[in-house]
């Protein structure tokens, strides 16, 4: 038997070849695919960044411009304050460049070189104007300093209140490359990336040199980043210093160079580059930097200023001319030397620029902002514009806010509340354990221009950070006696539908009575249960007598009072119940402001506006809110009420106003609710109307009257609002005649009457009986 040779089983080797044949191609393919996808991704995001960039602009919110016209009351001190807020520089000599002003002592004048500004309907090219003031504090003449042309009005440009840019607040304008002055472009390229026009996104020579320098120095001394890389960093990446980030940056830079021209990249860079910090807002791009540091357009920059901006690119906050002028100056000179060495500038320019002072404009004060106003604005804008439009279209919203008065309002509210808590310790939150959830003592203030309905200042609460609830627009509180003038107007009005017609001198009974309605009973009582018997209508309002007011309301008819309230601006949900006559129906401070606006404007009901115009980046008015008026009561009727309310300030419940230091002619009414929970004061001068409310959001008792709690805040605000201007009396419309009458009998003053009032009557209604009692 022979056995067959059996071949040995083949030796099993590890199947490197097979595996590598099986694995490597797919792996390669996967890698390639991943790389391809990544590349495509980078390309796409780059494209969207470059193309979308121009659309990604925040909405800017401007305050109102400040009109100066012949005849305006102008307080020079407050004008100087306004100018410095807008970044104007005070100079001792004749102002020659835009953004400068000087104050001339004699003859009293202010000379201003206005900044250029594009208003929605015209362009201010930056004229030099001379504003002369008279001894009474009125503007007596305005003229153009260059052409000697006589003007009758100029405006200080509006200030940016804030920007709406998602979460970050940014403030910028995009420029075309052609618009940017060539020396500025060349300076930045020279300083930051000399071979920008030669490399492919990475500068290998520069990189190598940087590596050598850094190794020799043993630390990071020089960066080898190209402009493209810096742009990529600004676009996408965070500020961490890692190798991975550097690599990503490099890849992106190369991709960007492949897809976009040098010009596009440069334009992007000059608009994106971070050049400093303006409070919470970053300063990006050369336009913004020129505005921020020098208060001018880039094309107006001098060589020294150009060198400083170019030098700032490396470390804007380290070299900041605001905080470190010495470093900034040194850096500027280094840049100038570099420019001279590379032949960008000649010897003469170099020396001239070297001799220039830094001359930076002071940074605008970091304002507290006007959070409640802006909040209200956002809400209004959101009704018309979707969110992404507001954060990216670069709209300009021109509002009615007066930043100076807004400041005054905020200060008046916070100071006033602090003082109240000092004087009345039971009000402070700490000393109020009985009501732990009542929160802080709160206040609201709203100021409007009664003739146009423009809201010029709005403080919706004590501290926006702690409570965002806007008490001006959203709080519903009982107005108390602040409501009473509506009752008196209904009684005095010549067009009274009920046929009941009172005069300011009509005698009314101030005594307890019971008002029966719908089978129910209501008994109004006076504060402290003190009754005065027969009094004139004027006396009843000046001293805020409840019983007398209720009896007038009953006589006139409560539905007439209710209709009058709705006509003047109270929400139509108010019922016709007796209690409303004494302010028993809850309203918002803004509604009260509307009502008093009718008295203050001589009978015109206006629609309160905060937004004047929304303008697109192309300068088109996207939305315009125009003044709308409706004539509700006759000017003479309105004046009767104003005249009575003046009496409240002179003799009545608000007579403390003069003691608080406010002596201008004013009309107003205090308000205190029965339970002492709300304190109000609503009042106006000829030009400004303000309503103040003080109280707790819920629960706690205030225990103070309107004249103690609200009046001081109103006085403080109005003192700032009128400044040191000349007092102006209220205008008397046609159809009003004055008579001296006895204060208590309401009859024509006789020889013996010592206590007389100069009373206003509608023409033909003046009293004719002479007082015989005195």
């Amino acid at each position, binding site marked *: 038997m022979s056995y067959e040779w059996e071949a040995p089983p083949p030796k099993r080797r590890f199947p490197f070849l097979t595996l590598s044949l099986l694995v490597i191609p797919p792996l390669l393919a996967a890698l390639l695919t991943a790389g391809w996808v990544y590349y495509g991704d980078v390309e796409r995001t780059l494209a969207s960044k470059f193309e979308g960039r121009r659309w990604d602009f925040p909405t800017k919110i401007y305050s109102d411009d400040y009109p100066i016209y*012949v*005849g*305006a009351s102008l307080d020079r001190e407050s004008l100087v304050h306004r100018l410095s807020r807008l970044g104007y520089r005070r100079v001792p000599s004749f102002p020659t460049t835009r953004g400068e002003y000087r104050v001339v002592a004699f003859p009293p004048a202010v000379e201003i070189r206005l900044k250029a500004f594009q208003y929605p*309907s015209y362009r201010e090219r930056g004229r030099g104007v001379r504003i002369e003031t008279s001894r009474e504090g*009125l503007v007596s003449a305005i003229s153009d300093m260059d052409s000697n042309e006589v003007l009758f*009005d100029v405006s200080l440009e509006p200030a940016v209140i804030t920007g709406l840019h998602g979460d970050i607040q940014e403030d910028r304008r995009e420029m075309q490359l052609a618009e940017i002055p060539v020396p500025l472009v060349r300076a930045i390229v020279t300083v930051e990336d000399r071979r920008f026009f030669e490399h492919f996104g990475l500068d290998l020579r520069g990189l190598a040199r940087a590596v050598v320098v850094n190794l020799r120095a043993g630390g990071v001394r020089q960066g080898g980043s190209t402009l493209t890389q810096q742009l990529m960093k600004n676009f996408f990446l965070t500020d961490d210093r890692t190798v991975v980030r550097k690599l990503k940056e490099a890849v992106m830079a190369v991709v960007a160079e492949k897809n976009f021209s040098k010009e596009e990249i440069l334009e992007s860079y000059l608009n994106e580059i971070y050049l400093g910090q303006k409070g919470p807002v970053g300063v990006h791009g050369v336009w913004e930097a020129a505005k921020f540091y020098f208060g001018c357009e880039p094309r107006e920059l001098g060589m020294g200023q150009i060198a400083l901006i170019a030098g700032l690119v490396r470390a804007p906050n380290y070299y900041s001319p605001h905080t470190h002028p010495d470093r900034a100056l040194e850096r500027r000179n280094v840049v100038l030397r570099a420019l001279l060495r590379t032949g960008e500038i000649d010897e003469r320019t170099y020396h001239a620029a070297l001799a220039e002072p830094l001359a930076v404009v002071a940074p605008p004060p970091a304002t507290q902002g006007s959070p409640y106003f802006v909040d209200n604005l956002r809400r209004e804008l959101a009704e018309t514009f979707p969110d992404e439009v507001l954060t990216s279209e670069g709209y300009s919203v021109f509002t009615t806010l007066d930043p100076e008065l807004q400041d005054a309002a905020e200060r008046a509210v916070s100071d006033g509340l602090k003082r109240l808590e000092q004087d009345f310790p039971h009000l402070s939150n700490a000393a109020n354990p009985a009501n732990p959830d009542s929160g802080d003592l709160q206040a609201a203030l709203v100021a409007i221009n009664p003739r146009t309905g423009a809201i010029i200042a709005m403080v919706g609460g004590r501290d926006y950070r702690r409570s965002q609830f806007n008490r001006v627009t959203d709080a519903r509180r009982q107005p108390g006696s602040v409501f009473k003038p509506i009752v008196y107007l209904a009684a005095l009005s010549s067009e009274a539908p009920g046929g009941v017609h009172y005069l300011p001198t009509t005698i009314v009974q101030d005594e307890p009575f019971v008002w029966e309605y719908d089978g129910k009973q209501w008994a109004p009582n006076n504060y402290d249960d003190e009754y005065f018997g027969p009094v004139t209508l004027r006396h009843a309002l000046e001293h805020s007598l409840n019983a007398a007011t209720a009896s007038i309301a009953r006589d006139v008819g409560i539905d007439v009072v209710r209709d009058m309230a709705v006509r003047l601006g109270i929400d139509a949900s108010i019922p016709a119940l007796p209690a409303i006559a004494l302010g028993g129906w809850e309203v918002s401070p803004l509604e009260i402001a509307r009502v008093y606006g009718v008295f203050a404007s001589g009978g015109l009901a206006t629609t309160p506006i905060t937004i004047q115009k929304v303008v697109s980046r192309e300068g088109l008015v996207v939305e315009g809110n125009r003044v709308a008026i409706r*004539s509700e009561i006759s000017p003479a009727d309105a004046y009767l009420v104003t005249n009575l309310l003046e009496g409240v300030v002179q003799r009545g419940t608000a007579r403390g106003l003069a003691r608080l230091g406010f002596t201008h002619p004013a009309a107003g009414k205090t308000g205190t609710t029965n339970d002492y929970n709300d304190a109000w004061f609503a009042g106006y001068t000829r030009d400004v109307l303000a309503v103040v409310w003080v109280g707790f959001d819920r629960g706690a008792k205030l225990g103070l009257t309107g004249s103690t709690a609200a009046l001081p805040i109103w006085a403080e605000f109005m003192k700032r609002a009128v400044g040191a201007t000349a007092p102006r009396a209220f*205008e008397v419309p046609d159809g009003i005649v004055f008579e001296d009458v006895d204060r208590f009998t309401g009859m024509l003053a006789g020889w013996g009457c010592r206590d007389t009032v100069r009373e206003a009557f509608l023409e033909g209604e003046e009293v004719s009986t002479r007082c015989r009692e005195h």
Partner: protein
Amino acid sequence: MHRCGVVCAMLLIFAVALGAGCATGPYISDAQYEQAKQARREQYAREEREERRTKREHREARDWSAWIDEQARPEGPVVLQRADLVLSAAISRAEYEGAPATQLTHLRMTAAARNALAEGNTERALDLLERAIAVDGSEGFAYLYLGHVYTRRGDFERSIGFLQQARRLLPPDPALRDELRRLSAMSAPIDASGMIR
């Protein structure tokens, strides 16, 4: 045979009748025929034109844009000639008499707005007029021109408020009042008695 004769006779009668008819029937010449044809054509064309016109009228009755365009011409339906005159007279008088500065500023701003309006810059004009009201609310001219602009735009709800106020404040110049009345008539809702409110 008999039947054949009947048919022949009928044919004969028919032919005779036809011939007689032709000879006695309404005969028109070629020229007359052409004329009639032409008349008929013209009638059709007229009817078509008529129909087109009513159609257009119907369309336009629904669409006010043509009418509003007409209002939006530089000079609206009511030309404020007298008002312009009275305004410039008021300015010279205020300058001469030394009227309150705010009143003068109101008048000058209104005049500037008038110029802006003539240049077609309505936005600027409205800005100036609103400012004029804020400067001095007791002078009526800015209200008048605001009412004028809004009437031209067809925004009657807004214009009526300004015109009412203008009526209160403007000087009692008869021709000016007439212009104001015509302007108000366009924007005022007319009540049952036909009176303008």
